[in-house]
């Protein structure tokens, strides 16, 4: 089977898969891309069944059908706001599958394993198990079943290092003592790795979830890839490696967008622990000298500003998702467009709980995707825009990132909402965001704050006469 002609079908399948990924360059092609990837997996399953006639069709069919039915049922039912949690749980399921397969392979022919297969099997086991438990913690946080704040244990770093050392020792032992009792070592490794996954991800906070979930994406792929080596399936290895590429690329992008290193995020260094009493202050030069309430009622002011504005940019953040305000936001957008104003949306890469989360939520509310603009494409337009409407976003529009050197947020790329002629903020409160740095945008002369649940406030605005 190892001659090159025999591998042609494998290359064909990988080609189909890569063509599928290529389709994701445009929203229009993405659906076909997803189908191509599906086709590739289906062909891979058929090829494997053809090459390895299985003995127990009934059992296999039942298992596959049961899993598929559950997956299908849940996928059809989850709401778009639950997508990050769903994806995290699925990473976990993939991790379990990878370590179980590696375990069986290691225990099945422990006497005939080659060195390479044994090493990859053990790596697959460790990464799979850690991905499983890490994903469960991430999924719990994303589904609001666990608290969002980082949980830091005493001596957390030391504990992590100790677990890693234990794993390294347990993995090395079979190579000296022989593979006879590989099973016991494998079980010990699984348990240690599950603990590693939990300890690792528990101290990563809610707003760093886009990084964690991308990282778990990569590690699930890596586990699959190593699983492919131990079971000697090039297809499995290749598909796994493609997933690793995707996951690591997204991880890098998310870190870059937050201007933080991967290590910092994984160390659970929250950008700032809100210093008692004195939040970090920043100066934009535009803010009021005396904090006096604006002349009129902020709501009337806001309506007046909306009436006068010709160009509008919306900046949504995770707060919009939490308030489920995306439908009101899009209604307001439609109303403004109907009045002949030009409006668009500026999306920060890390807004939301997973990469690109805001886009899906707004697409669900029927916003045409041409209106969803990337940060770099739209950032120069703020200064010529009459009105910027911020909905549930804080850190991603915090000018302190540009002006306040020394604050934790300094250097992060932000949407330059503060440059717009007017800013209306629909946020719950004026508390600092996840970074802990106070947002000077709120104190600017040209900013109107409409605090409270964004969905309710927007409903009120929608009822007002905006013409």
């Amino acid at each position, binding site marked *: 089977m*190892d001659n090159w002609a025999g591998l042609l079908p494998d290359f064909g399948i*990988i080609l189909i898969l*890569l063509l599928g*990924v290529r389709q*994701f*360059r445009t*929203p229009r092609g*993405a*659906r076909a891309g*997803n189908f191509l990837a599906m086709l590739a*997996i289906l062909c891979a*399953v058929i090829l*494997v069944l053809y090459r390895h006639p*299985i003995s127990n069709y009934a059992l*296999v069919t039942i*298992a*596959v059908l*049961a*899993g*598929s039915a*559950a*997956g*299908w049922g849940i*996928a059809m039912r989850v709401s778009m706001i639950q*997508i990050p949690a769903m*994806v995290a749980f*699925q*990473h976990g*399921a*993939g991790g*379990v*599958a990878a370590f179980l*397969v*590696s375990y*069986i392979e290691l225990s099945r022919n422990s006497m005939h394993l080659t060195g*390479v297969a044994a090493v990859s099997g053990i790596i697959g086991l460790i990464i799979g198990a850690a991905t499983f438990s890490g994903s469960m913690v991430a999924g719990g946080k994303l589904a609001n079943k666990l608290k969002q704040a980082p949980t830091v244990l005493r001596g957390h770093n030391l504990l992590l290092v100790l677990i890693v050392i234990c794993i390294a020792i347990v993995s090395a032992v079979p190579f000296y003592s022989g593979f006879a009792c590989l099973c016991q070592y494998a079980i010990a490794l699984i348990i240690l790795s599950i603990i590693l996954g939990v300890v690792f991800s528990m101290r990563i906070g809610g707003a760093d979830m886009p990084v964690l979930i991308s990282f778990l*994406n990569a590690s*699930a*792929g890596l586990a*699959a890839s190593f699983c*492919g080596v*131990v*079971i000697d*399936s*090039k*297809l*499995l*290895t*290749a598909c796994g*490696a493609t997933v690793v*590429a*995707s996951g690591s*690329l997204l991880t890098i992008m998310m870190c870059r967008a937050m201007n933080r290193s991967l290590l910092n995020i994984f160390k659970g260094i929250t950008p700032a622990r809100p210093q008692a009493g004195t939040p970090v202050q920043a100066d934009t030069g535009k803010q009021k000298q005396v904090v006096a309430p604006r002349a009129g009622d902020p709501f009337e002011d806001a309506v007046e500003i909306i009436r006068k504005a010709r160009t509008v940019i919306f900046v949504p953040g995770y707060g919009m998702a939490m308030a489920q305000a995306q439908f009101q936001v899009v209604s307001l957008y439609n109303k403004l467009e109907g009045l002949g104003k030009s409006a668009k949306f500026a999306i920060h890469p890390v807004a939301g709980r*997973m*990469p*690109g989360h805001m886009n899906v939520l707004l*697409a669900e509310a*029927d916003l045409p*995707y041409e209106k969803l603009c*990337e940060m770099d494409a739209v950032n120069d337009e703020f200064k010529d825009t009459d009105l910027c409407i911020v909905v549930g976003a804080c850190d991603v529009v915090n000018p302190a990132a540009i002006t306040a050197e020394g604050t934790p947020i300094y250097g992060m790329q932000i949407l330059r909402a503060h440059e717009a002629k007017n800013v209306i903020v629909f946020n719950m409160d004026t508390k600092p965001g996840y970074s802990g740095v106070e947002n000077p945008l709120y104190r600017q002369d040209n900013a109107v704050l409409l605090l409270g649940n964004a969905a309710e406030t927007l409903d009120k605005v929608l009822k007002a006469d905006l013409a």
Partner: protein
Amino acid sequence: MTNILIMISVMGLSFLVGYFLISKVPPLLHTPLMSMTNAISAITILGGLIIFSFETTAEAKIIGCLALVLAAFNVVGGFAITDRMIRLFKSEQKK
């Protein structure tokens, strides 16, 4: 026999091609992308199937079944939800 050179090159090549293709994906589609690659990572279902082609113990069969259930859950769920998401993205012209 596992040939280490072949495996490394398969892994490396797929990674590079994947990296190149995925760097072209716009941030607009990052969520569906991750959801799809998540489904692909459950390609371990192949491993679960291969296990059933060997003579194995009952214990291995039970574990293998569990792996199959979870991998199938991941594959089908991942692709289904990706499709649901992509269908939400509508163009201006169609409105």
